């Protein structure tokens, strides 16, 4: 089984880590270089973890488990106005990133108010491209209850956050509800506030585990990191994409950050060692995010094989 981990250390000799991961059959999901430091998000076979740990100890680096690595989470606020940003939304997004997830922040166009809050088809479809969503609401019980219409049609698990204690049974469409983090005008710094952020991470982790469990019932034809590796190798233009993460991983596929019209055929033609092309084992369609390419790997029940 592949285990998600995060390496933090000096830039010097970090190539050794990358090489070792590749030799062991793991994947480097993301590489962030900040001046003389580098952060690598890695998937590594769990039985080989001690080998990697030994090398990292030698390099004086740090290796921690990143339970959310390889997933994309949407952090949704009713709007992008000063009432909701920056404090709560940025704190949650940053905390999710530190645990390895790729986090996108979204403000709805008309998500405000108790009676007038609404979400449109485009916003719903965009959130559905993620693996999980966190909806950030305010301090009033009645408003949180009424805003259920915003996430009723979302198919990915939705973690709702808000101020007051509300019984989960009152919010049937939410995957989980995390209290004590409503609208605040300061950054989270007290131990209790950090504890609430931890419980959001746990909740998102459970939501992703549920999706993973659903996938194992009908496994994907191949794993998303393998598709990522093949696309990176065979569509070299992806390295010239300006995005910090040119290929974003999801639990059910990848998002290639290249223009759909120009590159869809190149992505479809990506061939694996087994002789099949990506077009045969996945649906390739335009993403709702800019004009990117969304790759969704088909399950074994549709293709008839796993590799």
């Amino acid at each position, binding site marked *: 089984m592949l285990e998600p981990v995060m390496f933090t250390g000096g830039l010097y000799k970090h190539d050794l880590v990358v090489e070792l991961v590749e030799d062991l059959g793991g994947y480097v999901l993301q590489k962030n270089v900040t001046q003389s430091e580098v952060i690598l998000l890695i998937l590594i076979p769990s039985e080989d973890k001690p080998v990697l740990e030994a090398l990292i100890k030698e390099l004086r680096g740090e290796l921690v488990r990143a339970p959310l690595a390889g997933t994309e989470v949407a952090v949704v606020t009713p709007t992008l106005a000063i009432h909701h940003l920056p404090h709560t939304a940025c704190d949650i997004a940053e905390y999710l990133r530190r645990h390895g997830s790729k986090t996108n922040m979204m403000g709805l166009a008309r998500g*405000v*108010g108790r009676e007038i809050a609404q979400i449109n088809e485009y916003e719903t479809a965009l959130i559905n491209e993620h693996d999980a969503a966190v909806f950030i609401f305010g*301090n009033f*019980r*009645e408003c949180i209850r009424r805003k259920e219409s915003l996430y009723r049609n979302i198919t990915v698990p939705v973690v709702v956050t808000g101020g*007051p204690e509300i019984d989960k049974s009152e919010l049937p469409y939410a995957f989980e509800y995390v209290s004590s983090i409503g609208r605040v005008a300061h950054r989270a710094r007290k131990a209790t506030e950090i504890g609430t952020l931890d419980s959001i991470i746990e909740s998102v982790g459970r939501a992703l585990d549920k999706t993973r469990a659903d996938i194992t019932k009908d496994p994907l034809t191949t794993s998303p990191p393998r598709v990522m590796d093949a696309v990176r190798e065979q569509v070299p233009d992806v390295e010239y994409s300006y995005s910090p993460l040119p290929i974003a991983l999801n639990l059910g596929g990848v998002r290639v950050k290249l223009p759909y019209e120009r590159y869809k055929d190149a992505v479809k033609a990506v061939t694996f060692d087994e002789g099949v092309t990506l077009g045969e084992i996945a649906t390739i369609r335009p993403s709702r995010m800019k004009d990117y390419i969304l790759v969704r790997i088909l399950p074994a029940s549709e293709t008839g094989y796993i590799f």
Partner: protein
Amino acid sequence: MDPMEVFKIVVTGQEDFGTKKYRELIMDILQDLGLIRSIGRLYVYMDIMDPVFAIYGLLRTGIPPLTVKDVGDVLKTEGGYQVKINDEEHMSDLLKVLWGRFGRERVEQPARDIVIIASDTDPSALTVADLETEFLQDLTDGLVRVAPEGFRNRRNEMSKESFFFIAAEETLTPELIAKTKEKIREMQNA
């Protein structure tokens, strides 16, 4: 301890948590904008079911207008007056006022913090900025930030002594305004 003499907040329904948090939120926002010392009493009324948000405050005694002698030392010199600036924040306002009063050719600025005026008239009492207007603008900004974002229909009644701000999702009818004012009056008399 509250820096205000009175700070009451009433929210209808079972919203104890929201009431407590809104109190902290209002304090945080007013403190961030540096408004809290100018407000003496504050009454906040929210009806979640209607829904309506209202805030009524009494202001501390008015802020006097800023004059030339408040921003610098005025000295009589040969052939005119010299102003040595202590507070650069209002420099542009000061120059604008002096140009308007004496004309550009009579106002000279040989150094960053020195202004020389070629005139026999003492400029000490000239008004540089109306701080009260600035304060009321900041206060309006603060109230818009405090009110829930979805409450887009707003009404703001401001005077030199007090302000009354009401915001709602639905159209603000005279009946709703009167009813809310009555609720705030009850809070004052309680």
